[in-house]
């Protein structure tokens, strides 16, 4: 048959698969999957267990080793007919915890440890890469069969070219349908349906070839059985160890293979499908292997000596001139290879991106988690991972040169993925399994597997030197890869299986027994192991040992008194106990819980009643439920956050204002007592001395002196009252300004003179730059001078330098004049600067020097009235105040 026709058929077939996947994806997007979600599709998709290795290789296997190939199907059969024990739990856990891959399952079970996720991913990738290479090889071999069968073919394709095109095509298909969207459950309806179609094609192809062989070439069933008996007996021997070991191995693999986990657990739509698949999938396997032995026997009889038995499925029909049948067989093998590669790369890409690429990306770009384009990043990571997985497979195929070494790789890969088994089974059945145990077991298993099975598969001298094979690593005989601890007599496969699984399980158990799990780990462990408990439907209440009064008290707290009492009365009437409290019967507790959950959420309601009814310990399920409710609340509050941040700002401003008010109010209180003190002090002197004077009979000098004191104190009292009055007038804006042209220099002169009355004992050095002061201002000269006096007096009072200095600096710009008063004291503490201009503000009592704390407040009011300002000038060495005043004050509302 023409080679081009074969290529065309291939392309048409692939186009057909694209179309199927495309249509299904579109239907899924519209939520109209219908019969596509049936158990039939689920069962058929499970058939990716049968890869090209089984499609072509089973016949070869049977031709070489007799019935042993059956063990590869017996393992899965036992697992599936025993689905109630293991698979059901696995699927339930997968659905309940939204498990996305086998690495995710392990990592999630052991406290969401990404380390474990990475380890499992590495194991899976290492084990799957040769397996993918095997699929590519089978397609290349099949093409090769046709190429040699048709030597007249116009375009004999180079085998490397074929492998490249197959790999690229598969990558394209997988990326297209495997990364269309990000589903929380990582389901890919298009791919699953395409896989189901391929499952039908490969079954039909194998059955067709088998029927042709049995009824076309041989003389029916009886004849075939006779021929089997007549076949070379030596080849039909079975080693009991291998037989048992391989059943175990294939049983482990069907659970642990990434692609099987993907279709069995992740893509599962309905747990009921598993019940159907429990017998339908073994039936599919039986059908797939039904004709293997006849094909092998007839092939061995008919085909020339040295013909590759792996290709009997193709070469038998070709040799008999059945071109169409051979084409069908080719498509069957092609389906087996492609479906395996597609699902495997999707499963591996999910693991690689979820456990390696995304964590790494988030670590490199810590802010990225918040960005909303994370979906795109994940999808891109998936695509890259798919391409990488296929590139690895292709690379392996190229490096291994498509040699016969690949034939053994199927079992080696099985053993590799089986290393996950102890951690997985232990994780879902044993609460005591810990993360450390799982890590130890996995790493031990990985190392032993690599050393005894994977690396030796390349042959002596490839990775492990011939010396290591002969003498063991480091020259230690008991470390020989094929004879650990002196067990060379074992079959190499069984040797590797025995030691890797034994040491793996041992490390896992010991590690788990000796370490203590963290809280998340324990929580997850309990949730996984007890996945069936209480999760199905609402838990019913048993009649509890609870006082109805306590229930009523709790209900009243949540529902309010009236509603709670009404609820209890209704229940009591229903129980025939009108006028009393109802008994805590299960129905009543259930109705109470549902009523409460309307107010406080299901998990909380359940936990509250639990505590009262006597199941005092809140169960793990409760905690999980509370957690998921909290998650919902968090999501909701995230939406409120935008509004909240605005509120926060407003609240912040309010708080600041409030603080200021509180402080002012405190100052006001302080001021009132201060003013009281200030008023009482002169009055005390006045009263005391006037009483003394009233008594008479004093020397006249004393009378004069006491009279002067009374006079001074009276003046002090007046000044204080004046200040208060002044401030009140200024604050109310009722001040009368007397505007006129005045010399700044003159005003400063006046102020300096006047301020000398304050602490006249102090020698004060005043530094001025007279030329700069030659400015005439249009302002209220008396008021401005009052401000200057105040500032200079303050400096005289408070400047604590040993040789006090006051620098007065004048500057003029843009119609405004600034006058700075800078002393060389220690200045005003930072926190006090905010309040010094506030009315009633006064620094500590230590600085008290007769003032009532009104000076600066008055200054500020005056400057506001003069259209200027007075402010504290920080960073000048001492206390520094800047007075800013307009050159020409225009009174608008004169």
């Amino acid at each position, binding site marked *: 048959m023409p080679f081009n026709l074969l290529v065309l058929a291939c392309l048409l077939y692939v186009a057909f698969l694209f179309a199927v996947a495309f249509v299904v994806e579109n239907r899924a997007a519209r939520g109209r999957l219908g019969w596509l979600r049936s158990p039939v599709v689920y069962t058929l998709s499970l058939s990716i267990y049968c890869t090209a290795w089984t499609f072509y290789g089973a016949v070869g296997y049977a031709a070489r080793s007799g019935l042993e190939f059956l063990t590869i199907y017996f393992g899965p059969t036992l697992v599936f007919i025993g689905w109630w024990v293991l698979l059901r739990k696995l699927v339930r856990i997968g659905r309940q915890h939204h498990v996305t891959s086998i690495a995710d399952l392990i990592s999630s079970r052991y406290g969401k440890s990404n380390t474990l996720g990475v380890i499992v991913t590495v194991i899976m990738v290492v084990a799957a890469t040769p397996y993918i290479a095997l699929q590519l090889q089978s397609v290349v071999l099949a093409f090769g069969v046709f190429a040699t069968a048709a030597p007249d073919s116009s375009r004999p394709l180079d085998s490397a070219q074929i492998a490249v095109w197959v790999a690229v095509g598969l990558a394209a298909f997988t990326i297209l349908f495997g990364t269309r969207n990000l589903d929380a459950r990582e389901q890919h309806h298009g791919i699953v349906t395409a896989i189901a179609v391929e499952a039908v094609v490969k079954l039909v192809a194998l059955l067709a070839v088998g029927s042709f062989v049995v009824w076309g070439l041989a003389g029916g069933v009886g004849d075939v059985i006779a021929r089997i008996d007549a076949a070379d007996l030596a080849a039909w021997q*079975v080693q009991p160890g291998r037989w048992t070991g391989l059943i175990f191995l294939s049983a482990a693999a069907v659970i642990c293979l990434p692609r099987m986990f993907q279709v069995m657990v992740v893509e599962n739509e309905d747990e009921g499908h598993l019940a159907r698949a429990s017998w339908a999938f*073994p039936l599919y396997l039986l059908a797939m292997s039904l004709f293997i032995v006849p094909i092998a026997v007839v092939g061995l009889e008919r085909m020339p000596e040295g013909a590759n038995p792996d290709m009997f499925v193709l070469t038998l029909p070709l040799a008999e001139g059945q071109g169409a049948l051979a084409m069908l067989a080719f498509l069957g093998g092609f389906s087996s290879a492609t479906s395996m590669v597609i699902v495997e790369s999707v499963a591996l890409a999910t693991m690689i991106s979820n456990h390696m690429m995304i964590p790494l990306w988030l670590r490199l770009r810590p802010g990225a988690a918040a960005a909303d384009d994370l979906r795109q990043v994940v999808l891109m990571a998936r695509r890259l991972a798919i391409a990488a997985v296929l590139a690895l497979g292709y690379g392996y195929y190229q490096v291994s040169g498509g040699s016969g070494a690949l034939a053994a790789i199927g079992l080696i890969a099985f053993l590799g993925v089986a290393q996950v088994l102890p951690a997985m089974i232990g994780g879902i059945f044993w609460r005591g399994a810990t993360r450390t145990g799982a890590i130890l077991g996995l790493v031990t298993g990985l190392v032993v597997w690599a050393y005894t099975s994977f690396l030796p598969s390349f042959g002596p001298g490839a990775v492990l030197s011939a010396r290591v094979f002969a003498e063991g690593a480091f020259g230690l005989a008991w470390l020989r890869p094929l004879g650990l601890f002196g067990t060379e007599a074992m079959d190499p496969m069984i040797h590797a299986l025995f030691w890797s699984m034994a040491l793996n399980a041992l490390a896992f158990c010991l590690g788990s027994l000796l370490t203590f799990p963290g809280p998340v780990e324990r929580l997850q462990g309990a949730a996984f192991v007890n996945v069936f408990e209480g999760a199905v439907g609402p838990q019913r209440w048993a009649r509890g040992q609870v006082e109805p009064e306590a229930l009523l008290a709790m209900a009243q707290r949540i529902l309010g008194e009236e509603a709670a009492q009404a609820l209890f009365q209704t229940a009591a009437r229903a129980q025939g106990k009108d006028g009393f409290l109802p008994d805590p019967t299960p129905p009543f507790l259930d109705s109470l819980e549902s009523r409460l959950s309307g107010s406080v959420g299901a998990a909380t309601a359940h936990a509250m009643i639990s505590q009262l009814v006597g199941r005092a310990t809140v169960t793990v399920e409760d905690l999980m439920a509370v957690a998921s409710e909290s998650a919902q609340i968090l999501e909701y509050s995230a939406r409120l956050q935008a509004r909240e941040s605005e509120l926060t700002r407003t609240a912040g401003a309010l708080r600041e204002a409030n603080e200021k008010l509180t402080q002012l109010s405190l100052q006001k209180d302080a001021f009132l007592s201060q003013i009281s003190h200030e008023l009482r002090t002169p009055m005390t002197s006045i009263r005391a001395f006037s009483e003394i004077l009233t008594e008479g009979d004093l020397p006249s000098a004393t009378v004069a002196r006491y009279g002067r004191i009374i006079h001074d104190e009276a003046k002090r009292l007046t000044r204080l009252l004046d200040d208060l009055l002044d401030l009140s007038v200024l604050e109310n804006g009722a001040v009368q300004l007397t505007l006129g042209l005045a010399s700044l220099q003159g005003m400063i002169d006046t102020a300096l003179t006047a301020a000398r009355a304050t602490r006249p004992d102090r020698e004060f050095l005043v530094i001025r730059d007279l030329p700069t002061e030659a400015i005439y201002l249009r302002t209220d000269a008396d008021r401005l001078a009052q401000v200057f006096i105040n500032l200079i007096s303050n400096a005289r009072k408070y400047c604590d330098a040993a040789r006090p200095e006051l620098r007065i600096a004048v500057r003029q710009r843009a119609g405004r004049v600034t006058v700075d008063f800078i002393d060389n004291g220690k200045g005003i503490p930072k926190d006090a600067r905010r309040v010094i201009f506030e009315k009633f503000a006064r620094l500590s009592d230590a600085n008290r020097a007769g003032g009532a704390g009104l000076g600066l407040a008055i200054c500020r009011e005056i400057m506001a009235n003069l259209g200027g300002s007075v402010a504290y000038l920080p960073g000048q060495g001492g206390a520094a105040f800047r007075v800013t005043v307009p050159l020409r004050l225009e009174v608008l509302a004169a």
Partner: protein
Amino acid sequence: MRRPRRPLFLARAPYRRRRLRDAARLLPVLGLFLLLLPLLWTPEARVSLTAGDVVYFFAVWLILIALAAAFAPGLRGGDSGGEDED
């Protein structure tokens, strides 16, 4: 996690369902036994298998599938309630 006041004896239908689950659990054990049985027929290390064995294996296989198919409807959806108690 034994719940208080569990009835000691179950009604007939739940009882049947429980026994069906036991059977489902035992089925893979039975299968394994039957699939390993031919190895015991001859005591030598290497066992020759004949066409009769082929027929035997496929017959066992088919029986196991038939049993699983018979159990499946009764097990499906009946997984509420206690797992470990009888």
